[in-house]
């Protein structure tokens, strides 16, 4: 055979192989029966559509209003004669015929509310024409708590309805859980803001504004600057994102705080700063130094002290930064301090200290708690050690 002959055979073989491959791929894919959908598919779409219409009201939680708005959709999902939604205390809505049954519902579902298990019961009715002979009651649970029940009525016993009611109830539960989640998220944000507000004392806000007000007439330029500092400071303190900040930002906020405090106390308060530029990029928990400075200011100016000196230093110590906040004020009984740091101090002055100590230990480990040296009349010296890097701690 000639070379051309071989070539023809090879080409033919390749074509055959390629064609076979193509054919195989085509047949492997299942053929679609209808491009516009089978009756089963249409029913599915209808169900999904009804379900999606019932969902939005339920996202507001289980109330009379939301129950009323979703009950009709739920009933059409189940295809029953009547449907009833209850919470733990009473009937929220009755959809469909035979609403005189509503009077007895709560007695009949008491067991469901207590045990959280599906039950079926015959609905004893004086009216012989009443189509509602039988009912299934399923609990609506969120977080293992029974919030209410869904009761579906039918002319006769039906396993299909029992199963369908269970599935619909489960779907309602998911919506209610989402509602719960929405609520707890809102609560969380509110709690966060409350916690942040708790860190800036209302006294401080009041005093700062009073001090600024006193400058408005005598020195408007100064008043303007202080107001800007105040705005900046509160913006930083109220910021809602991120648990961490950088030492530079935290020290900047402390500087603004001190400017506001000095507007009020003037010469009575003198502050010295030593900051090693190497440690400014260190990341640390948000607002964990400011309460310590506030504490120092409070102690420094407590009682009949005429003037006070506060020293803040941030130094480079190898793989750590060391921040020291020192005042020459009234100090504190070490015994009492120990009580406060153990959380036994009650709602007194030490809340800020305790909070900072807890957060530092939580983020960096127990060996990074506050180190406080103090005595009555001996001032106070608080040392904070911050590792330059800790996995998961990123200042933003």
């Amino acid at each position: 055979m000639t070379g051309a002959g071989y070539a023809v055979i090879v080409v033919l073989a390749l074509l055959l192989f390629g064609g076979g491959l193509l054919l195989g791929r085509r047949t492997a894919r299942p053929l679609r029966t209808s491009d516009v959908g089978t009756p089963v598919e249409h029913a599915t779409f209808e169900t999904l559509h009804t379900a999606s219409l019932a969902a939005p009201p339920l996202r507001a939680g289980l109330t009379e209003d939301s129950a009323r708005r979703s009950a009709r959709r739920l009933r059409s999902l189940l295809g029953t004669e009547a449907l009833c939604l209850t919470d733990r205390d009473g009937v929220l809505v009755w959809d469909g015929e035979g609403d005189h049954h509503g009077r007895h519902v709560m007695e009949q579902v008491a067991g469901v509310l207590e045990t959280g298990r599906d039950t079926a019961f015959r609905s004893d009715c004086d009216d012989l024409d009443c189509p509602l002979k039988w009912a299934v009651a399923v609990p609506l649970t969120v977080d293992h708590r029974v919030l209410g029940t869904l009761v579906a009525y039918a002319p006769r016993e039906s396993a299909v309805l029992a199963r369908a009611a269970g599935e619909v109830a489960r779907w309602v539960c998911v919506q209610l859980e989402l509602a719960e989640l929405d609520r707890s998220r809102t609560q969380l944000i509110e709690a966060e803001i409350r916690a942040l507000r708790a860190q800036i004392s209302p006294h401080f806000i009041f005093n700062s504004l009073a001090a600024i007000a006193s400058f408005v007439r005598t020195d408007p330029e100064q008043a303007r600057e202080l107001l800007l500092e105040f705005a900046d400071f509160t913006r930083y303190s109220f910021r809602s994102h991120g648990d961490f900040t950088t030492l530079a930002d935290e020290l900047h906020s402390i500087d603004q705080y001190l400017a506001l405090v000095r507007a009020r106390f003037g010469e009575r308060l003198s502050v010295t700063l030593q900051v090693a530029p190497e440690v400014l990029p260190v990341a640390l928990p948000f607002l964990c130094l400011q309460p310590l400075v506030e504490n120092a200011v409070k102690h420094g100016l407590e009682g009949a002290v005429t003037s006070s000196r506060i020293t803040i230093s941030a130094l480079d110590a190898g793989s750590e930064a060391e921040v020291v906040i020192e005042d020459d004020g009234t100090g504190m009984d070490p015994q009492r301090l120990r009580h406060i740091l153990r959380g036994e101090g009650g709602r007194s002055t030490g809340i800020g200290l305790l909070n900072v100590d807890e957060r530092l230990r939580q983020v960096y480990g127990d060996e990074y708690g506050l180190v406080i040296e103090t005595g009555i009349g001996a001032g106070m010296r608080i040392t904070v050690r911050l590792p330059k890097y800790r996995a998961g701690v990123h200042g933003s």
Partner: protein
Amino acid sequence: MSRTYAVTAVAVVVLATVLVGGFGLRISRTTSDFYVASRTVRPRLNAAAISGEYLSAASFLGIAGLVLVHGPDMLWYPVGYTAGYLVLLVFVAAPLRRSGAYTLPDFAEGRLESRQVRRLVSVLVVGAGWLYLVPQLQGAGLTLKILTGAPGWLGDVLVASVVVLAVAAGGMRSITFVQVFQYWLKLTALLVPAIFLVLAWQGDGSPRITFDEHLSAFRADHPLYATYGLIIATFLGTMGLPHVVVRFYTSPNGRDARRTTVAVLALIGVFYLLPPVYGALGRLYAPELIHGGDADAAVLLLPGRVIGGLGGDLLGALVAGGAFAAFLSTASGLTMAVAGVITQDVLPSRGVRHFRLATVLAISVPLAGSLMVSRVPVADSVGMAFAVSASSFCPLLVLGIWWRRLTPPGAVAGLLLGGGSALLSVAITVSGAVRPPGWPHALLAWPAVWSVPVGFLAMILVSLATQSRIPPGTNAAMTRFHLPEALTTGRHR
């Protein structure tokens, strides 16, 4: 040469270092100056600090010595030391800063979320740091011997003790200003005598400097291979040196880290114009050093030889002071970095006392090494530290920053095979088990040519084989590394 001047100069440098370090920060400020006090380190200042820390004994003494003995081919060393920063700039600088890591183990842990990788990197960092410290101490010993005739070990011990005292006593608190001071001191200490030396040379009628083909036994065979080994090691090794990585943390953000690196390139580029001058003139005025061994002494001896008299003594003292600044700054920077890693990853519990203990540990091992191991030319032994860094940390950093599919097992394999093999060949070379002529010695003395590809390949192949182990936080880490500051800080201001 008058010993009194030189000893005084060394004492002044040591004292000034301790004073600037200890008291630079004591100048306290009141809050009205807060803006000044809290200002982050600007790129140019940080660049001078990085350069001050980086220009070591190898740069100050070693390059001139090598050029003197082996001719201009040795100028690849300063070019490599400089170009290493270009590679660092284009692949590593900004993302490394944005990662928030202080040391390489921090980076490894943050990127790969694995304590094991962290521990392995720590071991390698300590190893590379020690390798780099040995020549610093040996250079100090040599300098003191030439200046005062003191026994060779005294200088090693002196620098080690000064570093321990300064670091452990917390005297290096304003390290940035110390290092900036050291950079300008080193530049002045080489520049001023160099001007006088060149003038004196012209006064002699500018005799021609010849470089006959004289190659030492150390690199006699396969010079081309040795050159490529040197280029690869220095170009890729700079990014992993522990004291270089630590200084990038001082930059306030990734953008500044980049600008800092450009400034570093310019600053050390200017400095490296000078050592070759000493090498060339040494060829002319101190020819006995070519065969005598201590070629690293050329920089120290030239001012006395060429100029003589009081002027020569003073210039010699200036050079001696600069040399000591070189040992002190690099040694203290390295010791700090190594001690930081030892406190975090080796010693069980943390605290200030442990950092002091770690400092002693960090420098006593290389001190013992420098006293026991025979003297390899300073620049050569520094080259070995670069080779280890290039074959372990370079793959880790480059792949860690740019490749999402890196896995912890891949990183371990690359570090062990690349870094481990480089470390092993360096150890064999230093121990003298394989003697010069022949390929075995060349391959072991310049391992970077083969160990860098080994490191990269091992990391890539093992990662590809273990794709199920990709750390879950990879995307978050990548976003953090590369997202510009304009987007991360701008939105909450």
